[in-house]
Each structure stands twice: as structure tokens, then as C-alpha cells.
């Protein structure tokens, strides 16, 4: 809220005006959530199942085309969802503009890096399995 006693209430309430954005993130958060409704149960079931066969069994499982595709999709949906969710948390809790911008950038970097790591690891197993 404006501290300046000469700022009118209307000026404070209007602020910088409407950003005319937010709907796309709202939609993407829900779409990734819907994707995860299917992907996460599959992921949990498969990982528990695959872990029974030890390290070699898990590597073999992750190298199968359908498993690899679904694993990458799961990571994609989860990290995209996480990026939007974390952004909302940061915006909620961090008021200082500088700190907030820095954390928002860090959030994007971290989520993209995590996705790239998972995706490339799975691809390596998949392509490695073919070779």
C-alpha cells in the first residue's frame, strides 16, 4: 500500500493497471495437472515394479521406448507444473522486487535444468539400449 499520504485510494487500488495476462499460466497449470493424473500413477507403479529387478532391470525398463517416452512426458508435465506453482509461491511470499525477480529467474533455470537432466538421462538409456 502506498505510504505517501497524498496518493489517493483510487490511485493505490489501480496500481500499475491490469497486466492482461495470467490466464495462459492458469490453463497450463491445469493441463499439466490433468496430464499428471494419468502419468504419476503410471510412474509410481512402474518405478516400484521396475525396482524389483535391481539396477540392470531398472535400466532395461527405462530404455524401452514407451517407458522412455512416458518418463520424459512425466518429467515435462511435473517440472512445468512445478515452475508455475513455485512462481505463484514466490509471488505470494516475496515482496521485494529485486529478490522476487532473482528467485523467479532461478526458479525457471532450476525447473528447466531438472527437466533437461531427467530427459537426457532417459534418452541416454533409450538410445543406449538400441546401440
Amino acid at each position: 500500500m502506498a505510504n505517501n499520504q497524498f496518493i489517493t485510494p483510487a490511485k493505490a487500488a489501480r496500481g500499475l493497471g491490469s497486466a492482461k495476462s495470467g490466464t495462459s499460466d492458469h490453463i497450463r497449470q491445469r493441463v499439466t495437472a490433468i496430464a499428471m493424473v494419468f502419468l504419476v500413477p503410471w510412474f509410481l507403479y512402474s518405478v516400484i515394479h521396475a525396482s524389483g529387478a535391481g539396477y540392470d532391470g531398472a535400466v532395461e525398463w527405462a530404455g524401452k521406448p514407451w517407458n522412455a517416452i512416458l518418463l520424459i512426458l512425466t518429467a515435462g508435465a511435473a517440472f512445468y507444473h512445478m515452475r508455475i506453482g513455485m512462481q505463484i509461491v514466490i509471488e505470494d511470499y516475496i515482496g521485494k522486487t529485486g529478490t522476487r525477480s532473482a528467485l523467479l529467474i532461478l526458479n525457471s533455470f532450476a525447473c528447466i535444468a531438472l527437466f533437461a537432466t531427467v530427459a537426457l538421462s532417459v534418452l541416454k538409456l533409450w538410445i543406449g539400449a538400441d546401440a
Partner: protein
Amino acid sequence: MVELTLPKNSKVGKGKTWPKPQGATNLRQFKIYRYSPEEAGNPRWDLYWVDMDKAGTMILDVLLYIKNNIDPTLAFRRSCREGVCGSCAMNIAGNNTIACTKGFDELPGGVISISPLPHLPVVKDLIPDLTNFYAQHAYVQPFLKTVTPAPEKEWKQSETDREELNGLYECILCACCSTSCPSYWWNGDKYLGPAALLQAYRWLIDSRDEATGERLDDLEDPFKLYRCHTIMNCAQVCPKGLNPAKAIAKIKHMMVERVS
């Protein structure tokens, strides 16, 4: 921004314990938030004994009993005393509500605390500063906007379209919902809050209003609208039984509808 503790000058200290009314047999203790800008120091909790046989049936009656019989300096807003004006909104036993429609029989046992609506500047005692709340209500332009010249007699509306306004028009702007919302506490300077958004939806859904697109434009914002995280405190506390969270969800639905 999030504040998990009260600022230094807002910490509530121990106040005065007022004497018991004489000859009363049915006593109940109330802990009331007191703050006066004219006096130095932090706010305090004053303890009052109230003769429940003489105080009436509602919390507003208790406050009037205290003001008339014990402590005339107690300040609070009230007007209609029947749940229409929204003036006597305050936090009673931990829940935001209006004092005039909250009966004793609905209260938990023990000492009942009464404090102003949370997370607003306090003018005095139970009177919060609602300036920003009203400015946010004004922001949503709560009036009919049209480009078609006004008809000679009246703007007509079908019965079905009129029914859409049920559950929206009843809002009395008491601010119970907005001040119960953590998102509004943390970002109330930018987030419009449930009350203003319920009113925004009341005009968005009005079949006679021709400014729907412009209204949506003014709301589409990560803070003004999308700070609602469906915590639902608003719906839980509304003394009129309305559901601002549902209205906000419908605004979001309209936003999605116009891009897809």
C-alpha cells in the same frame, strides 16, 4: 508480502479487567481489543464481565451493553442491527462475522475474544480502516455499463438471466471475506480480494451489461484476480452465506472461455 508476526507497534498487550456487574448471576467474560490513536502504546486486551440475562441475544447486544453500562469509550461501527448494512463486521471468537447476527448460542465456551477485522490498519478499537477495500470495490466499476442508448423505460432482463444474480447481489460489503483471506492479507495492495471480485462477477454475468470484455480486461492479472488460491475462507465466513470463491472460479472460467 507475507507477515508471520505482528509488527512491533501492533502486538497486543494485557489491558484492564473491568469490574463485574453487581447482582448478576449469569456472567460471561469477553476479551475485547482496545486501541486508541490518541493514547501512547500498543493495543491491549480489555476483559469485561457481561450480565447475559440483561445483554440481549446477539454479540452486538453485548457490545452495546458494555458501551452503555460499563465502558462508554469502546468504539465500534454499527447501524442496522439486522445484517443488512455490514457495519459491525469484526472478528468474534476467531471468525470474521457481523456482530448483529451472531448469537450467543453459536459461540464456543470460555472467554470470547472480539477484535477488529484482521490485517487492516485500525482506526480505533474495533474500527478498521476500509479505504483500500472500498477503492478496490470502485475499481471493478460496480454499475451498469452500456453503449446502447438507454431505453425509454427500463433495461429488460429475462427471469433466467435475473436468477444468475442470486447469490451475488446480496453482498453487503462487510469485508468479512476479504479480511479472512490469507492471500488478501499478504497481497491486499494488489489482489482485489473476494468481495470486490464477487461484485465484479455480479456485473460480468449481468445480461444487461455491455462492458463484459472491458471488465475482463481490467481483471486479467496475476495479482488482481489470480491471487485467489481457493483457500475458501471467504465462503466459510460470509455472514450472508454467499460463496465468493465460486464467483472467482467463474471469472477464471470466463477468462479461459475467451481464449479457447
